[in-house]
């Protein structure tokens, strides 16, 4: 048994490791790579996996749940509220119109009306997994096309729930179906069901606010990374389980949980912990979809399958184009939007499977529709490429000309690492000037305290690359390190220079020695924490001795300037050597001489600069 499991794992992973880089190599999205890998190892080509492919499909659907949790994490509740119009408007329009048209066509072609309706509902859904994965991969989430796609997908995910609830009502043999998506609530009266659904939503929100965060704080204090990963998984799985229990979509519940946690300090830490799981599960999901394409059905009636695939994609795209036009998307964005969402989504598997159990859709039709769904999912990434490379360039505008983001997602251009005494002053001054950095700190108690004071601080160890990534380092322009520990700061600089050379680094240094290390790494902007303060102190002492403030101020400016210059000259010397000490003595002597000279400049000495002579210029010029 375990050998079998290992064999399976080897097959899946090998397929992924071979196909995905190949797809990427040709500039295709990873989704397509996974789908092709699935087809390759599926029962009809290499035959490594057979019937168990469907079980894996169910298991891997959890990847979609996790993806929605992560998406929820990036949407703050107030932004979610701002999007309600586009979610309801665009989503409702698209789903409603598609159902009506598909239903009409199916009804005309002599399907029973419940069957036609089930087909219509299944076809109205698009693939959240494919579209969002592609959007994230290309960083297009914040374009108007990305936003519109997201709104529609979210509406569809919500719409699945009433669809699943409605289907049994159309069934003539509904009574004996109680497994599948049935839940323990099914036998209760409708009022209780609604109440339970509402209660569970409230429960997720309350738990997110008052239970998850304190628990995560406790876990963070143990400083065991794997425990944090476990807690993160636990949260998502628990929410999904609860939702399944009351008959809601787990994906939707996870999304809600994510939104609730989006405001918490663990946002980035959760993201970086769940990202790998999500990636793997989604990959598995796409492989399973690829493997589930039934080539026998295609062999039997290739014309019908082809006709259906083309028909449904064309129909969905047209409806979407109409929606986009109605909601004033520009032509290029609208094309991306319409073609991006033109496939049938993964929820169609669930919906059609359920309809089959209810006797609404018979086995042959089910097989046919599943094949159409899987093929449409495989074809749509290819269509998107055709659209991007061939159609869009002719339309005139390009994908890169994006409208500024209107509601969700806010990757700020500045990251501030370390929020102790030094960092908090930096942060306060930036904020006073209208610049809000993303702040990271690894002390969860301090993070808690600062959050209570009203600072938006996130928990996490910034020397870890995955955390930096979820904090948005790729989009960032400047990173400020206000870390107390010089070694940690150096490690951070090395990581950043290696992976994000575009980033401008602004680094706090504890001492001259640290500054040397940073200079050797090629860091330009180094701030020794004590230099300004100690010079200011010395100035005040001189002032107490009766010196004038303005002169002292200028001397201080020059002292710091000369000191910076001499520090840069001394970098090359190795510390503690005889040579270094001699050089330092020399530099100090020079510095003092320069400052003395500054003090003397402009001072009247031997004469009065000829200000009293009658005609200074003429006389001077004549000799």
């Amino acid at each position: 048994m375990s050998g079998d499991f290992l064999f399976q794992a080897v097959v899946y992973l090998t397929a992924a490791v071979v196909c995905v880089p190949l797809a990427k190599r040709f500039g295709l999205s990873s989704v397509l790579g996974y789908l092709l890998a699935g087809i390759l190892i599926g029962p009809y080509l290499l035959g490594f996996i057979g019937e168990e492919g469907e079980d894996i499909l169910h298991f891997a659907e959890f990847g979609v749940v996790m993806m929605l949790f992560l998406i929820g994490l990036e949407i703050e509740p107030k932004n979610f509220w701002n999007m309600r119009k586009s979610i309801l408007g665009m989503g409702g329009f698209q789903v409603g119109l598609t159902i009506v048209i598909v239903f009409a066509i199916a009804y005309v072609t002599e399907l029973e009306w419940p069957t036609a309706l089930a087909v219509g509902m299944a076809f109205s859904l698009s693939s959240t997994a494919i579209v969002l994965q592609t959007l994230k991969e290309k960083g297009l989430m914040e374009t108007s096309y990305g936003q519109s796609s997201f709104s529609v997908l979210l509406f569809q995910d919500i719409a699945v729930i009433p669809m699943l609830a409605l289907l049994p009502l159309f069934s003539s043999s509904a009574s004996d179906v109680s497994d599948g998506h049935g839940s323990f609530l099914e036998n209760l009266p409708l009022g209780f069901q609604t109440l339970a659904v509402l209660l569970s939503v409230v429960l997720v929100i309350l738990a997110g606010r008052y239970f998850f965060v304190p628990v995560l704080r406790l876990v963070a204090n143990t400083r065991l990374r794997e425990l944090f990963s476990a807690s993160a998984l636990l949260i998502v799985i628990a929410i999904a389980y609860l939702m399944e229990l009351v008959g809601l979509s787990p994906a939707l519940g996870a999304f809600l949980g994510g939104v609730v946690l989006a405001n918490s300090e663990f946002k980035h830490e959760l993201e970086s912990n769940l990202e790998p799981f999500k990636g793997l599960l989604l990959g598995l999901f796409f492989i399973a979809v690829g493997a589930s394409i039934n080539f026998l059905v295609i062999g039997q009636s290739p014309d019908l399958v082809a006709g259906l695939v083309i028909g449904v994609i064309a129909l969905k795209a047209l409806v979407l184009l109409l929606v986009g036009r109605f909601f004033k998307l520009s032509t290029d964005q609208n094309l991306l939007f319409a073609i991006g969402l033109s496939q049938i989504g993964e929820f169609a598997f669930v919906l059609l499977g359920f309809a089959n159990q209810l006797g609404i859709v018979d086995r042959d039709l089910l097989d046919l529709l599943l094949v159409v769904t899987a093929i449409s999912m495989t074809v749509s990434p290819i269509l998107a490429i055709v659209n991007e490379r061939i159609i869009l360039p002719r339309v005139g505008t390009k994908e890169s000309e994006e409208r500024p983001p209107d509601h969700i997602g806010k990757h700020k251009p500045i990251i501030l690492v370390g929020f102790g005494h030094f960092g908090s002053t930096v942060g306060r001054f930036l904020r006073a000037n209208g610049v809000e950095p993303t702040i990271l700190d690894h002390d969860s108690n301090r993070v808690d305290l600062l959050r209570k004071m009203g600072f938006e601080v996130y928990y996490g160890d910034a020397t870890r690359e995955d955390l930096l990534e979820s904090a948005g380092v790729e989009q960032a322009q400047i990173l400020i390190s206000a870390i107390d520990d010089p070694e940690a700061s150096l490690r951070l600089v090395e990581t950043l220079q290696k992976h994000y050379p575009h980033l401008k680094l602004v680094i706090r240094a504890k001492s001259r020695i640290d500054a040397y290390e940073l200079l050797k790494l090629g860091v330009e902007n180094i701030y020794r924490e004590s230099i300004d303060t100690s010079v200011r102190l010395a100035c005040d002492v001189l002032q107490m001795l009766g010196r004038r403030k303005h002169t002292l101020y200028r001397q201080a400016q020059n002292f710091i300037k000369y000191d910076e210059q001499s520090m840069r000259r001394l970098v090359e010397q190795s510390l503690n050597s005889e040579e270094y000490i001699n050089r330092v003595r020399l530099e100090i002597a020079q510095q003092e001489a320069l400052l003395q000279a500054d003090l003397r400049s402009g001072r009247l000495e031997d004469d009065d600069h000829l200000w009293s002579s009658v005609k200074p210029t003429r006389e001077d010029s004549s000799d």
Partner: protein
Amino acid sequence: MSKILILFAHPRFEESRINHALIETASQIDGVSIRDLYELYPDFNVDIQAEQIELLQHDVIIFHHPFYWYSCPPLLKQWIDLVLEYNWAYGPHGKFLSGKIALNALTAGGIREVYNESGSNNYTIAEFLRPFEQTAKLCQMEYLPPFAVLGTHRLDNNGIKEYQKQYSQLLYLLGSGEFAPLRAHNCQFANDLAVIKNPVVR
């Protein structure tokens, strides 16, 4: 070919439309260097040596500034106080600026009509600029009439464009080393140059 140095001093540059336009124009002309003093020396700690080297490398020095209280903003005065040293800019051995050209380029809210004997400001721009004129003379530089953008409060986009054109014409003329039109007796402002040279532009 004369090389031009614009010493630009504006403490609130970010809020000045006209100066953005003028500096933008000037920055596109070859042989013109712009030193944004408030950006270089936010602490007023003017680097004397660096400034003197800049002066040596140019033939025409333009003090470009808003006309604050009938004079320049304080940093430009600080610059003059520190950089024009005894025995460098003036004095028995101070001949390093000798023969260069100096002038002011200024922007002011009031219109041209208020700057004269009968106007509310009582004196002409040229009279207010006497300290600059004498500073230039003491350093053995030739002082030319100022380039002045007056009535900035009422300036619309077309007006700004017109002044941009005048400034670039002036800079090209100075760059070519042709100073005769500016030395003419009837030339009160370096702006009027365009009118003298090309009567169509108004």
